[in-house]
């Protein structure tokens, strides 16, 4: 039975590996797995060329192929007869296919070794359902968004816009966005990482649905899945993470005897058993603001509809974050912040605990009672306010006085000061809850210590 290629698009998500047969000029067949057959349009598909393989050589001699692809939900197989047209080594198709491979390569420590050489484009001569492949007829499953889903998601977009507009702090904006993604899209494992131009890294500033918040976790631009999305400024949707990683690790093992040094594998952020990932760059113009990422244990969790929809949402989120960062540059006021936490309740007189904070100059990091707390600029901010408080008894500070202190090393523009305070606040809550940084109004914050602080430098 003939089928339209666009009607079997689920087969092209890479969840189930596809097989491809070619034959050389003498008619000797060759049959291999390929990680993914890419849907181009109703008459074209593409295969990734990562190594100059026998498949590739056969196509030069005899430019036809047969691919068998499989629906990941029903396991129904479809057979495509293909005619090789051309190899693309740049352009939108190449970039899309390359992003996925680069991300997996980086994640498995294979960056630069395991890469896309070309996107091989084929004309689909015929596409047929493989009759009799399944003993029972497959039960079809919905492939796209339902009208109800559409309505829910439009409401979600309105809700996110509203939350962005009403947010009084970067923290409430990020929290509101992740809450909306769970409520309206049922994305229950999400995180937002913001770009720090000072050190070319992304830092996790908000997360939802994880046992540990992961706030403060960093990834370099170009490292792993999220770092690759940030570097390329392109959305990445992976539907079969486990299979892709197995494939990447197989190549890593095969390449391990080579002379190149391979990097250590970067642990997945969040779910250790994630099967699908959607990572979206947050950009304003060409400027990278950060990355928003969602994960799920269901390999088919994210589809093209989510991709298109969340790109729109990401633009709004990026603008909202950027505006919030701009607003933090405005002069401090003296009115209490709307979302400032309530003052700490007075505690009954009791022996105060002691906390030993050590600043390691060489590592630019602070440890609390020998446990890592924070490093870089947030560490310097904390050390400055602690020192000032110890010397003068001051507990109230303004963002502005921090900004003009060259010893903190803040960038002259777009310094992300508020995001650094959020990071500091969360790390203190997790590792040293009796020392707090609280917002006391726009552009102002206070140090609250409920312990005797001992400071030392090494």
């Amino acid at each position, binding site marked *: 039975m003939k089928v339209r290629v666009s009607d079997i698009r689920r087969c092209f998500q890479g969840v*189930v590996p596809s*097989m*491809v*047969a*070619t*034959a050389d*000029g003498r*008619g*000797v*067949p*060759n*049959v*291999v*797995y390929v990680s993914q057959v890419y849907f181009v349009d109703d008459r074209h598909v593409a295969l990734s060329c990562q*190594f100059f*393989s*026998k498949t590739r050589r056969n196509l030069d001699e*005899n430019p*036809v*192929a*047969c*691919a*068998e692809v499989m629906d990941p939900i029903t*396991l129904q*197989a479809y*057979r495509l*007869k293909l005619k090789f047209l051309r190899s693309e080594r740049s352009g939108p198709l190449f970039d899309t296919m390359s992003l996925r491979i680069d991300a997996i390569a980086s994640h498995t420590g294979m960056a630069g070794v395991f890469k896309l050489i070309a996107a091989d484009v084929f004309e689909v001569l015929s596409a047929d359902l*493989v*009759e*009799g*492949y*399944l*003993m*029972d007829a497959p039960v079809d499953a919905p492939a796209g968004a339902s009208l109800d889903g559409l309505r829910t998601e439009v409401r979600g977009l309105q809700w996110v816009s509203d939350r962005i507009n009403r947010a009084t702090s970067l923290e409430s904006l990020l929290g509101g966005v992740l809450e909306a993604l769970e409520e309206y899209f049922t994305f229950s494992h999400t995180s937002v990482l913001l770009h720090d131009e000072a050190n070319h890294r992304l830092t996790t500033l908000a997360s939802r649905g994880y046992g540990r918040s992961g706030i403060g976790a960093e990834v370099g631009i170009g490292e792993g899945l999220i770092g690759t999305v940030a570097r390329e400024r392109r959305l990445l949707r992976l539907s079969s993470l*486990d*299979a892709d990683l*197995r*494939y990447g*690790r*197989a*190549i890593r*093992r*095969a*390449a391990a005897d*080579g002379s190149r040094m391979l990097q250590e594998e970067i642990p997945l952020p969040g779910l250790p058993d994630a*099967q699908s990932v959607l990572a979206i760059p947050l950009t304003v113009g060409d400027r990278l603001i950060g990355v928003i990422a969602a994960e799920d244990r269901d*390999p088919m969790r994210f589809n093209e509809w989510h991709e298109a929809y969340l790109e729109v949402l990401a633009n709004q989120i990026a603008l909202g974050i950027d505006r919030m960062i701009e607003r933090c540059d405005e002069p401090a006021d003296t009115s209490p912040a709307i979302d400032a936490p309530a003052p700490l309740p007075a505690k009954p007189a009791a022996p105060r605990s002691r906390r030993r904070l050590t600043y390691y100059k060489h590592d630019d990091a602070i440890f609390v009672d020998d446990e890592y707390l924070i490093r870089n600029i947030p560490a310097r901010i904390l050390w400055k306010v602690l020192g000032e408080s110890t010397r003068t008894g001051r507990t109230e500070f303004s963002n502005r006085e921090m900004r003009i202190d060259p010893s903190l090393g803040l960038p002259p523009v777009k310094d992300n000061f508020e995001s650094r305070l959020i990071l500091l606040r969360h790390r203190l809550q997790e590792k040293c809850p009796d020392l707090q940084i609280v917002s006391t109004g726009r552009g102002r914050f206070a140090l609250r210590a409920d312990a005797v602080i001992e400071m030392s430098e090494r």
Partner: protein
Amino acid sequence: MSQSRNQRCLEPGLSVLVGTADAAGMPSCCRGIAISTADDLQTITVYVPVATSHETIQNVGVTRRVAVTVTHPRDNFATQFKGSAVEARLAREDEAPFVRARLDAFADVLDRIGVPRRVTRGVAHWPAFAVTLRVDQTFEQTPGPNAGRPIA
């Protein structure tokens, strides 16, 4: 080929792919269910479901050329055999338990990496054709820079 590699190529739980080409060089492929050997991989017999292998059997009848790739789904360890068919026949009833056991083992492996057993067991596997080929060449097929290299 080393003894350990031979063993891995014959273990239960393998994925089996079969490639052929017609007289004009147009390739075709289908999934196999099992492979076996009686002479240490000098010849192999690959079992393909009758329901899905019409074109494969037709091509074997015309050109006799067959490629068979076996892969361990968990680590992608893969080997490709190429050779000429010496026999293509309907599998005997006494071979059915072996074919069924191999499908079950494959379902168990896929289940461990997220594909439910019931789905894999729903794939047609019997009646089957048994295609025996004389192995002329063996190739490394594990993904990576060595994929496609002949194995001595």
